[in-house]
């Protein structure tokens, strides 16, 4: 299917300080974003797509100078795709603290003249949403037709529905959760410890030393990657296949799965920032909108006004279907319009990024109806 084609990012600068959940604030920051499609005359067809851990504002299309730079959700967003850019004005925005252009730990702190490094404030999902709302203000969008995301992106979409109930008509949260489990947090902390224990980390100020905690970052990615795949998927792809036909009786690479994970880890460590990894995993851990309501998610969602679409995947053990069902249950108790699809797919958490007819049919049908509302 055709892609949106050549796209280019834009930058919006914000001078006014953004108060953060931690009590800190960040001033004089930039957000990088991309837009696809046309905003209609009454500004009613805007859709915000929120990214997950290792993605960015580059949702769809590719950059002029790079054949391989296809957006991370190009199979979902584009002309004729489930989220059709011939109908909708789609915005992808890079979150604060990320390493893909928006202000992050590698950028110069105007207060000190040095890179933020470890001094970059810890940001939360809610902080990101407030920053995104400022971008929406600047783009003249008072209400989104939909806000959509998968995984951590789904958390942002949900946070929007609670923080700015009137600013979105639909909330689409895929393979997401209203809070991380102890096991999820445990995986995140092992990943963080790998980074923190890397001698090249230098307390987060490795930029000054001209080094990168590459090994820690690679191990962090390896751990994360394991949790994105299903046991069956891994067994089918790799099984016990050996790299060199026989045991090597050493601690190098014996099995194909080791080779694959090391390759993924190394590749990741070349383009991702270690401080960003720490920040984003903390944002994941802290997300728990029910916490302010004594753990009652039904109360947390009581002021929402959006209609919801939730999708989960049966083999996703990172954010299992049960996590989505909890959200559905809380929405049903609030009598919110909610549709929930549980897709029987073999690819674990990663399934939300992959093409699957049943999954895409549901999302497409959902957006068809949003389009009907807009054009009614």
């Amino acid at each position, binding site marked *: 299917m055709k892609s949106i084609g050549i796209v280019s990012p834009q930058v919006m600068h914000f001078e006014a300080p953004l108060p953060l959940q931690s009590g800190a604030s960040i001033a004089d920051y930039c957000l990088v974003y991309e837009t696809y499609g046309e905003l209609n005359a009454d500004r009613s067809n805007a859709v915000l797509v929120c990214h997950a851990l290792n993605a960015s504002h580059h949702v769809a299309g590719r950059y002029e100078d790079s054949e391989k730079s296809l957006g991370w959700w190009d199979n979902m967003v584009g002309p004729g795709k489930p989220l059709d850019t011939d109908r909708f004005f789609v915005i992808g925005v890079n979150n604060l603290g990320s390493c893909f252009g928006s202000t992050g730990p590698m950028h110069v702190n105007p207060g000190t003249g040095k890179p933020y490094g470890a001094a970059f404030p810890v940001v939360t999902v809610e902080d990101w949403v407030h920053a995104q709302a400022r971008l929406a203000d600047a783009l003249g969008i008072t209400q989104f037709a939909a806000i959509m995301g998968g995984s951590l992106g789904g958390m942002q979409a949900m946070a929007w529905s609670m923080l700015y109930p009137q600013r979105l008509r639909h909330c689409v949260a895929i393979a997401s959760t209203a809070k991380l489990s102890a096991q999820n947090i445990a995986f995140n902390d092992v990943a963080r410890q790998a980074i923190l224990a890397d001698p090249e980390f230098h307390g987060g100020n490795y930029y000054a030393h001209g080094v990168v905690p590459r090994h820690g970052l690679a191990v962090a990615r390896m751990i994360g990657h394991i949790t994105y795949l299903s046991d069956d998927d891994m067994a089918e792809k790799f099984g016990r296949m050996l790299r060199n036909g026989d045991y090597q009786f050493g601690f190098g690479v014996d099995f194909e799965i080791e080779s694959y994970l090391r390759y993924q880890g190394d590749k990741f460590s070349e383009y991702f920032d270690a401080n960003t990894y720490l920040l984003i995993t903390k944002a994941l851990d802290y997300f728990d909108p029910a916490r302010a309501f004594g753990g009652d998610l039904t109360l947390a969602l009581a002021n929402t006004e959006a209609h919801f679409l939730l999708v989960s995947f049966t083999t996703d053990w990172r954010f299992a279907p049960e996590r989505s069902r909890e959200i*559905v*249950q809380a929405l*049903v*108790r609030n009598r919110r*319009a909610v*549709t929930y699809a549980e897709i029987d797919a073999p690819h674990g958490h990663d399934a939300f990024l992959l093409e699957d007819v*049943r999954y895409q049919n549901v999302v497409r*049908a959902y957006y068809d109806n949003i389009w009907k509302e807009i054009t009614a």
Partner: protein
Amino acid sequence: MNFQTNHMLRADLAFIASWVGEGSHILDLGCGDGAMLEYLENKGCSGYGVEIDDSNVAACVQRGVSVIQQDLETGLANFPNSAFDTVLCLSALQMMKNVEGILRDIARVGREAIVSFPNFAYWTHRLALLRGRMPVSRSLPYEWFDTPNVRCATIWDFEELANLVGLEVLDRVALDEAGQPVTWWPNLRGSLAVFRFRQKTPAA
């Protein structure tokens, strides 16, 4: 064979819809492609369908009705007591393994419920059995080897189960193949049984 495209069932849906109050909050179990929900929403009702089949879920989304993909055999624990004005379970009960369990759950989550199922004692079914063959009809359109129906019941059978499960039957009607109520000899002349009921003692 698809129940939802069966002409007779369109008529029975229209009849059953007349039993649902305007503006009711509805749970439609085994909602199929969402046609009934859409019809009821046009009557000012709100609520959700519950459906297991992927293509039916997509069809519901296409209609713009809220649907929750869920296996009814796992029960309705995710819905609170008396959360709905009316729970519908239309031409789905006969496909369930745990009929007793789902009936108790239906009565718990709905202030009132309407269920329908093919009446096995319909005269053409009786005739087929007399001839020594399993019945195949508009309300039982499957062969014995490919039917999703695992329960065969008659109108009288259901009365007995309703009593056992602690349901108070408020209304019962047998519909003929044209979806019209049958007044005399319903258990012989009705192909579809429809019951409206509620829990005998309200949920604590």
